[in-house]
């Protein structure tokens, strides 16, 4: 009744009429223009990333292709080296033949540019760290999403974010100064000598590099896996528990499979980051461009090569162009990795319609 009284009062009518007049004015040109400007601005922001990607691709390939014109493609895979023989009597070294090998020696008298040892280093480190961080990262993600109470989660999740935020150079330094030598000592002579890890001679090697990279990737994977699992509707967990499944059975057989596309994306993303990681591998993987089947030997990755050699390479010289080519190769591989993820996820999503 009170409301009706208000509607009928003269004051209400006056206010209402005034408001109506204000609100029903045609939208001003300025207002419409403002809308358009905001839209353009946001579009430009979106385009920026696309343009950046395009420019990066363009320049890397433009510079890299030059190297291909200077040196035949086959030489980027295997190199030709002279086989020499030293005659101690005459004190002369004679070339007796040539052999094919995989040598990265960009600043020698006859520079050699086989990218195979660099790819060996990159993929070796990426695979080892992907293995370590898949185990740990998925484990942490499951713990956070399925097991941890709210309070533990509220402590651990920010910690992970801090770990992601630590500059990689600090992690590299930490590995180099604190972790590397004790691991070597343990593996080759300390309490774990009974493990007989063969040929663990050098404190800076592929394994230590991969371990350092894992520190960066574990929190990334853990966070993404946590998100993917939490996106699974609680209904599914309840359905599983309601037929008498344990919590672990529910996680392993229902929640994890339902989140598989997200988990898979997390793993590939982690692998991509490992492939692109530079500072840590430069500092603690030994930085020697050699191929050793033993994962406890030093390696140099593609990224470490670019970072450490670009400064010394003469701009416009062959070495610099080759490094651009290595960069182009790296970008192409990570790009293809992303494409594969998209395809697989879309296929899976269609099949199970999540």
């Amino acid at each position, binding site marked *: 009744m009170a409301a009706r009284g208000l509607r009928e009062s003269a004051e209400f009518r006056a206010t209402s009429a005034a408001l109506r007049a204000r609100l029903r004015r045609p939208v001003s040109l300025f207002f419409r223009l403002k809308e358009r400007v905001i839209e353009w601005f946001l579009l430009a922001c979106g385009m920026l990333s696309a343009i950046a990607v395009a420019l990066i691709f363009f320049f890397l390939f433009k510079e890299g292709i030059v190297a291909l014109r200077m040196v035949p493609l086959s030489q980027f895979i295997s190199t030709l080296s002279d086989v020499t023989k030293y005659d101690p009597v005459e004190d002369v070294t004679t070339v007796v033949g040539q052999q094919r090998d995989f040598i990265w020696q960009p600043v020698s008298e006859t520079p050699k540019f086989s990218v195979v040892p660099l790819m060996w280093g990159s993929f070796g480190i990426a695979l080892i760290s992907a293995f370590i961080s898949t185990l740990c990262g998925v484990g942490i993600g499951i713990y956070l999403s399925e097991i941890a109470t709210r309070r533990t989660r509220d402590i651990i999740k920010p910690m992970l974010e801090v770990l992601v935020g630590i500059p990689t150079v600090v992690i590299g330094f930490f590995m180099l100064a604190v972790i590397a030598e004790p691991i070597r000592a343990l593996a080759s002579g300390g309490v774990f000598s009974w493990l007989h890890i063969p040929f663990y001679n050098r404190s800076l090697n592929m394994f230590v590099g991969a371990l350092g990279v894992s520190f960066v990737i574990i929190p990334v994977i853990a966070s993404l896996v946590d998100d993917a699992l939490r996106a699974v509707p609680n209904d599914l967990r*309840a*359905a*599983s528990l309601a*037929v*008498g499944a344990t919590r672990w*059975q529910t996680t392993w057989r*229902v929640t994890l499979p339902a989140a598989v596309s997200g988990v898979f994306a997390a793993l590939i993303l982690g692998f991509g980051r490992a492939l692109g990681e530079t500072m840590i591998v430069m500092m603690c993987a030994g930085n020697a461009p050699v191929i050793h089947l033993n994962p406890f030997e030093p390696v140099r990755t593609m990224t470490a090569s670019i970072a450490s050699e670009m400064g010394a390479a003469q701009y416009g010289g062959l070495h610099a162009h080759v490094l651009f080519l290595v960069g182009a190769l790296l970008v192409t591989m990570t790009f293809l990795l992303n494409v594969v993820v998209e395809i697989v996820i879309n296929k899976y999503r269609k*099949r199970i319609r999540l």
Partner: protein
Amino acid sequence: MADATARSPNEADSAPYYVELRRLNFFYGEKQAIYDVSLGVPKNRVLALIGPSGCGKSTLIKAVNRISELTPGTRTEGDILVGGESILAANVNTIELRQRVGMVFQKPNPFPKSIYENVAYGLRIHGVRDKATLDGVVEWALRHSALWDEVKDRLKASALDLSGGQQQRLCIARALAVQPDVLLMDEPCSALDPIATGKIEDLIQTLREDYTILIVTHNMQQAARVSDHTALMWMGKLIEHNRTEEVFTNPREKITEDYITGRSG
């Protein structure tokens, strides 16, 4: 008769209860959701729980398989008996309990797996591996949930390709596969169209011969059609519990009359 009355002031049946709640109080943290509810359902009968949203009827049936405990900070007082045994006792294993007391949820929630795997899931987690048993039980459960004829040629297809009604019957089959005695149904038709709803209601009529059923529903006609007994809940309290015809034709309480005629709720 006297003994039965002692259990519940709103006695519905003189037969012994198979599922029985004794002075049940339920809390979400500090907030009390159920106040001193005593009621029960005899073997092979259907009890419908009706009442407005938030009156505690879902909480009540979720307490019977203790799935309500999944929400942190919940507390149960009083006792719940299934087949004469307390399910709130310290030595009760919720895994065994949930095998005996199956549940069908409000929204169809099949796993993103094949039709076959959805039904076989409960058996697999309890360690049944041999294919002959699995095949047999899957067919049995799908027949009992009136879905077999529609899916027998595509058991390997994704459960998510089924219609909503078929998915809900699949969820019933999944619950039946682990051989429960009791079925809890939490508004099983609320997400379904009238035809699918009709099929589920027919199904409840046949399931009643083998199972004791507690069903929560918002639909008065549904309660009237499928249930033997009806209980009306109101703000966490049990208002009336009686044979369904009695509740709908001759309600004892004013609240019941208002609710079933649509004047409140």
